[in-house]
């Protein structure tokens, strides 16, 4: 009977101590930087030493060793209760800044009292040994009161702190605290029953060495609470449980081995399982963390994307409103000047007509600039859309020529449009945008031609194996361009050299916008020139089938 219980003692205490240790390291490795996890590991280690000392002190030992083992039980009990208090104090936080009082008063007190327990001021000597040779009674000295009050103060303060936290916690936050309380209550009841009531009332101290087994519920529940609070992924928890169970099973085999060879083999297996298990947990945790990071990044990206959409909408609205505001005075200026020029307010002298026309054209440049900026803003934000309608390209060219005729005549230029027969077919395109392109090309030709003419042509191109296209050409007898200038012609905010020399009008937006409009129609726009002083020809090719 005695033999069996002895074996059972060692077996259960060994398992409980190992379990506490394994849990301590698993929790610690979950988050090494968290003060809660660090405290938990320290608490688990002290619990192991305390319980081991407790077990040893209940065995038959030589006098001096027996005395020191009992003293060490008290030594570890001080740290055990202190760390219990600290665990309640820091849980569930990752970072806690301890006050100066904590660092410079509390810890010195704990150190002092724990070392006091190793001196004869607490236990001076053993007064009674059991028939088996185990310690039964000791001579208590006044230091025992200091020890007792410190230990109870820590337990009391810890419980107080925990209840304070439960009181302030939300319903959901209460769950981990409750788990800790349940574990603590089970451990407390077990200790109370077997370490106090049984020896005191029934004179049965057989269960005292089982301290480690009684401590386990608290450690287990607290470990679960820490895991639960971190809201760890189920995958991580499953890996941790698997590692824990495997470690316990292999440890059991170690304890049950009865041959040295098998013992060494099983210890190696246990250590392998434990180290690989911890590696596995860490890699699963890393994977889960990376996934969580990815999810949080995706979430942030979604938020940023929403913000960009909102900003983009605000920008579009701003551009629309700003151009509206800019256009209103331009409309009035354009309208009144045109009315004055048309003689609505009385006949105009020739002397006055020229400067008024200059004002009118300057105003027109502003009108076009606002239109171009609005178009550019829409093109660059991808909001420009085509509105297709059956359109006659010849009609568009005619209307543009009508608009620019006076301007060309004033500069002594001839505008010629040879509309070929049979080109009256209607094609589907965005009339406003193609008109804008044609207007731009002819207006440019007038601007960069000092004398001569501007000839506009239009022809349908039907070639086998190619789709039918319509080709518009605007040829002038102006300055001409080099190849380098042609290459840069249709880029945003650039102008050909001839442009800067002859005329500084325009912001270089017109041809860039024209290219965008033509390309939206799946067409092509390009320029040709035989060189300086030999004029330029601009081409626009549009597919007949849009």
């Amino acid at each position, binding site marked *: 009977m005695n033999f069996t219980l002895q074996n059972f003692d060692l077996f259960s205490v060994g398992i409980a101590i190992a379990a506490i240790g394994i849990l301590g390291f698993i929790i610690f490795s979950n988050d090494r930087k968290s003060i809660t996890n660090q405290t938990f590991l320290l608490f688990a280690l002290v619990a192991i030493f305390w319980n081991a000392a407790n077990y040893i002190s209940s065995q038959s030992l030589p006098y001096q060793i027996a005395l020191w083992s009992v003293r060490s039980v008290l030594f570890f009990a001080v740290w055990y209760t202190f760390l219990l208090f600290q665990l309640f104090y820091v849980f569930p936080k990752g970072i806690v800044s301890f006050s100066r009082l904590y660092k410079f008063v509390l810890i010195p007190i704990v150190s002092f009292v724990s070392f006091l327990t190793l001196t004869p001021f607490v236990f001076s000597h053993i007064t009674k040994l059991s028939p088996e040779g185990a310690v039964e009674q000791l001579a208590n000295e006044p230091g025992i009161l200091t020890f007792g009050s410190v230990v109870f103060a820590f337990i009391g303060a810890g419980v107080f702190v925990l209840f304070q936290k439960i009181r302030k916690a939300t319903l959901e936050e209460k769950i981990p605290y409750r788990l800790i309380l349940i574990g603590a209550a089970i451990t407390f009841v077990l200790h109370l029953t077997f370490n106090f009531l049984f020896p005191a009332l029934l004179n049965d101290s057989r269960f005292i060495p089982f301290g480690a087994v009684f401590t386990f519920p608290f450690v287990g529940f607290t470990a679960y609470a820490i895991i639960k609070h971190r809201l760890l992924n189920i995958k991580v928890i499953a890996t941790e449980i698997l590692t824990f169970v495997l470690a316990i099973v292999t440890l059991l085999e170690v304890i049950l081995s009865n041959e040295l060879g098998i013992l060494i083999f099983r210890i190696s297996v246990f250590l392998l399982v434990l180290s690989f298990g911890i590696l596995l947990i860490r890699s699963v945790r890393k994977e889960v963390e990376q996934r969580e990071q990815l999810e949080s990044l995706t979430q942030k990206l979604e938020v940023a994307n929403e913000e960009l959409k909102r900003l983009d909408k605000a920008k*579009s609205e701003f551009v*629309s*409103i700003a*151009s*509206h505001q800019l*256009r*209103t005075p*331009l*409309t*009035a200026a*354009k*309208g*009144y000047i*045109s*009315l004055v020029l*048309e003689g*609505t307010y009385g006949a105009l002298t020739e002397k006055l007509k020229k400067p008024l026309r200059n004002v009118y054209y300057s105003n027109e440049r502003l*009108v076009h600039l*606002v*239109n171009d900026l*609005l178009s550019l803003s*829409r093109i660059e934000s991808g*909001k420009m*859309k085509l509105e297709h309608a059956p359109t006659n390209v010849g009609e568009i060219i005619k209307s543009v020529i009508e608009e620019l005729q006076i301007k060309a005549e004033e500069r002594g230029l001839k505008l010629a449009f040879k509309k070929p027969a049979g080109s009256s077919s209607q094609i589907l395109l965005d009339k406003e945008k193609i008109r804008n392109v044609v207007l731009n090309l002819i207006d440019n030709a007038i601007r960069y031609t000092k004398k001569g003419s501007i000839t506009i042509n239009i022809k349908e191109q039907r070639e086998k194996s190619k789709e039918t296209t319509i080709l518009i050409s605007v040829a002038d007898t102006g300055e001409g361009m080099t190849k380098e200038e042609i290459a840069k012609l249709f880029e945003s905010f650039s102008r050909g050299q001839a442009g800067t020399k002859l005329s500084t009008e325009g912001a270089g937006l017109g041809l860039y916008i024209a290219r965008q409009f033509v390309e939206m129609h799946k067409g092509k726009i390009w320029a040709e020139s035989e060189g300086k002083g030999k004029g330029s020809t601009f081409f626009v090719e549009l597919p007949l089938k849009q």
Partner: protein
Amino acid sequence: MATNSQKKKILIVEDEELLSQMYRDTFEANGFVVVTASSGQEALQLAKKEKPDFILLDILLAGENGIYFLEQRKLLKSIATIPVIAFSNFDDPNVRKSALALGAQDYLIKTNYTPQEVVSKVQTYIL
């Protein structure tokens, strides 16, 4: 010279006084009878009372805007068939689309036309 009863009547809805006056002058010089309104509500009342032959409608107005006018016009039988051109410096693709969907015959940008060109445009719609 056309008598008043033969003259075409146009309702110009424009909240910019300077522009309103300019278009009134030009249309009158071209033989139109002109009534002007500066808000959507006023335009509705005038349209019902005056039964114009044509409406030149600004979109951004103080008070109810041009889109509101177009919506109401559709519901009122007495004015639902009067042709309207949306005529604004506010060039937003969605607003343009709404105006055309609500029955505006065209959406013109004011700054691109001289008053005389506007008259010519309107004449192509009336005659």
